[in-house]
């Protein structure tokens, strides 16, 4: 009797064709009801179905092409990269050196310079449609140049990452204003300083402050999830407590931000302990659902306790932060900043001040975290994360260890919350939904839990990426005027969470230095540490 093997060796292309076909069938099944058919309201307010077969075909064909390319080219390519890696023992940077070459770098620099100086003239000459392409090329040239610099300086950057990061964060608003001033000068605008400050609003506020708030929140949650290993799905509750403490006490009693900031932190820490007590005995997923429930309870109380919180309408007119009482940012005040320094009025000063405030708060969080990790309580957190039973048998009081983790994590959430209220000037329960907790947790996990730098990078990529989508007006010239990139923001955010997690299941910073070590400091691969195990 002869054995017959039915499976013939197939080429990657054949296999890819088969996979593409399967992907096509599955995506047709998935998208038939949602893309092929759309529910729409007609004039009599009844639902009717609208068919979109063209769009459905496009999406299915696109899925097939992507799947084909992935199986036929991307998978073998990645496999080759891994083999080269094992032989040389080096990082697979051959593609990198091919992609970043000195002539290309000089070319991109020249292109960027030409387009920055003459960009507006070219756009004025060609009209807005081709102008969009000019802006796009300029953006790509700048990104390429920056990436090339980072690629060649990667050894240096890797060594001094934290200090470079902090210095560039401190310089960021100044750089934005200077670059915008240069742009205004090249456009020949009349009032260069006011144009520069007005234009910097978007960059400092939407990008700088927004990202730093998430960095701070994620660093605060990192104490609970990353260090103590307690899975908290309701972190946004402490953010809400901080925001509402400042909003309520500030509007009703007129207390200053600098008194209410520590108070908001203390109140949030108090709530952290309140939450901590009932959940002390719970483990893993039971803990997760109770913290989620706690977050929802806080939000529901904020919505329904209308006498105090004004319900879902929220509290408006939250007072602004003053510069320690020396000067303020309210135009009507006698010591308004532009009156004190005799400079033109602008809302940008307040935003730049807020930027430095949140930067200081975030750095404080990082500093406290780093110092706490070296203290007995920090060691106890990490021991608790690795093994609760061993921890208890060594005489560590798990009750107080868990409670301090909850309290300190919550305190930083409270600080961030009161900052948020001061920045918005308005708080409402809308800002404290579960989605926010999920985003913060995702940033912590994607960053590689416990790693402060990794978390900051994750916040930059995820929050900055979705904020950047708001700015992609040029996409309108490709997809038509009805195209609104904001609509796809959260869809892409969710998909990015999945893709990043599949690509790097251990997060961006997947190895870490131990805080406690014997004689020699060895980096441990992330796979040897156990996190989030209730």
């Amino acid at each position, binding site marked *: 009797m002869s054995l017959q093997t039915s499976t013939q060796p197939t080429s990657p292309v054949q296999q890819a064709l088969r996979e593409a076909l399967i992907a096509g069938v599955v995506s047709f099944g998935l998208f038939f009801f949602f893309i092929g058919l759309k529910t729409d309201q007609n004039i009599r307010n009844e639902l009717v179905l609208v068919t979109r077969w063209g769009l459905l075909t496009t999406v299915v064909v696109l899925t097939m092409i992507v799947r084909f390319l992935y199986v036929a080219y991307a998978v073998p390519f990645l496999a080759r990269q891994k083999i080269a890696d094992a032989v040389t023992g080096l990082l697979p940077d051959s593609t990198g050196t091919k992609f970043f070459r000195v002539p290309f770098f000089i070319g991109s620099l020249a292109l960027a310079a030409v387009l920055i100086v003459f960009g507006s003239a070219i756009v004025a000459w060609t009209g807005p449609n081709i102008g969009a392409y000019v802006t796009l090329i300029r953006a790509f040239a700048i990104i390429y140049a920056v990436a090339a610099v980072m690629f060649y300086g990667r050894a240096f950057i890797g060594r001094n990452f934290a200090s470079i990061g902090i210095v560039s964060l401190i310089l960021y608003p100044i750089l934005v204003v200077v670059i915008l001033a240069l742009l205004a000068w090249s456009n020949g605008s009349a009032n260069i300083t006011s144009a520069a400050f007005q234009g910097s609003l978007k960059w400092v506020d939407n990008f700088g402050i927004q990202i730093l708030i998430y960095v701070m929140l994620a660093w605060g949650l990192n104490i609970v999830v990353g260090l103590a290993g307690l899975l908290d799905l309701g972190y946004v509750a402490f953010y809400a407590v901080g925001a509402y403490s400042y909003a309520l006490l500030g509007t009703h009693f007129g207390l200053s931000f600098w008194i209410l900031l520590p108070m908001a932190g203390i109140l949030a820490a108090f709530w952290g302990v309140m939450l901590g007590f009932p959940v002390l005995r719970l483990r893993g997923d039971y803990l997760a659902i*109770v913290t989620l429930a706690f977050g929802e309870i806080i939000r529901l109380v904020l919505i329904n306790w209308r006498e105090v919180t004004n319900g879902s309408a929220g509290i408006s007119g939250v007072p602004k932060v003053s510069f320690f009482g020396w000067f303020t940012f309210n135009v009507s005040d006698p010591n308004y900043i532009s009156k004190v320094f005799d400079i033109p009025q602008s809302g940008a000063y307040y935003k730049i001040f807020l930027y430095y405030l949140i930067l200081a708060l975030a750095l404080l969080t990082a500093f406290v975290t780093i110092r706490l990790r070296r203290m007995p309580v920090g060691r106890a957190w990490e021991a608790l994360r690795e093994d609760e039973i061993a921890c208890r048998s060594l005489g560590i009081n798990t009750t107080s260890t868990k409670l301090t983790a909850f309290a300190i994590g919550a305190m930083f959430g409270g600080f961030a919350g009161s900052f948020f209220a001061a920045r918005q000037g308005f708080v409402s329960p809308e800002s404290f939904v579960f989605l926010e907790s999920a985003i913060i947790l995702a940033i912590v996990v994607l960053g590689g839990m416990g790693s402060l730098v990794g978390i900051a990078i994750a916040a930059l990529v995820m929050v900055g990426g979705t904020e950047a989508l708001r700015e992609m007006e040029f996409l309108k010239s490709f997809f038509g005027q009805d195209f609104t990139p904001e609509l796809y923001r959260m869809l892409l955010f969710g998909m990015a969470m999945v893709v990043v997690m599949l690509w790097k299941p251990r997060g961006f910073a997947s190895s870490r230095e131990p805080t406690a070590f014997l004689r020699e400091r060895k980096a441990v691969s992330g796979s040897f540490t156990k996190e989030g195990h209730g």
Partner: protein
Amino acid sequence: MQYFIQQLINGLTLGSIYGLIAIGYTMVYGIIGMINFAHGDIFMIGAFIALIVFLALTSLFYSVPVVIALLIMMIVAMLMTSLYNWTIEKVAYRPLRGSFRLAPLITAIGMSIALSNFVQVTQGPRNKPIPQMVSRVYEIGGISISLKQIIIVVVTAVLLTLFWYLVNKTSLGRAQRACEQDRKMAALLGIDVDRTISITFIMGASLAAVAGTLFLMYYGVVSFSDGFVPGVKAFTAAVLGGIGSLPGAVLGGLLIGFIESMWSAYFSIDYKDVAAFSILAIVLIFLPSGILGRPEVEKV
């Protein structure tokens, strides 16, 4: 007394829907130990498919008997929702099996965000109302029971019986229970673990799709954000009953349904969710592994 019984019936209806969703959570948790956060949105997807099938039926045929329409809606929703959950498991959870615990939780949250926004982008952000399908109401001794409620309870009971039979009496159910106890050992004994896990996701999704269809029939409206609240409640129900335990999921669902309807009847409707969540916290303080859950054995 009549008022009390009336609320009991309302609670039973609500609890049946929560119970059907909760089974999906608890089964997935039992077999691979992860919280499938996207399950609430799978429920919403099921409701949406039922809505689209309903609209297609009413536009294609002049009149369809309600029973047949409901059946077709349910079956199509079950099939299509299963396809969704099967794909999600394959794409987002399977590659991370054996990775550390929080990784699949994060992909599940990402999938949940992506699914609800996918529906928002493709179907529009508005509420989608449909005309009432079943409107008959019976009056028995001063208590009014609508036909909708009877349908929901009967369908749930039939499905749970079927499901109980499937898990306890068939080889498929045996394979599932084996995987739940020890996945490696089950694989060594010749059980196709991947297939069993896929089938678990398909079963959970079909029950969620039925819940979605019933939800659409009961409330007559669905929107893209409707997955979250029932999803969290069902998850609460699964934990309350003891996560991993099937009777626990149904019991938890009924309990949450009763708490909600009683609280809104006797206290305040605004705080019904607060009551449900608080009772969860109180129960877990005294029974840390839920009502019917096995206490976790700590191995050193």
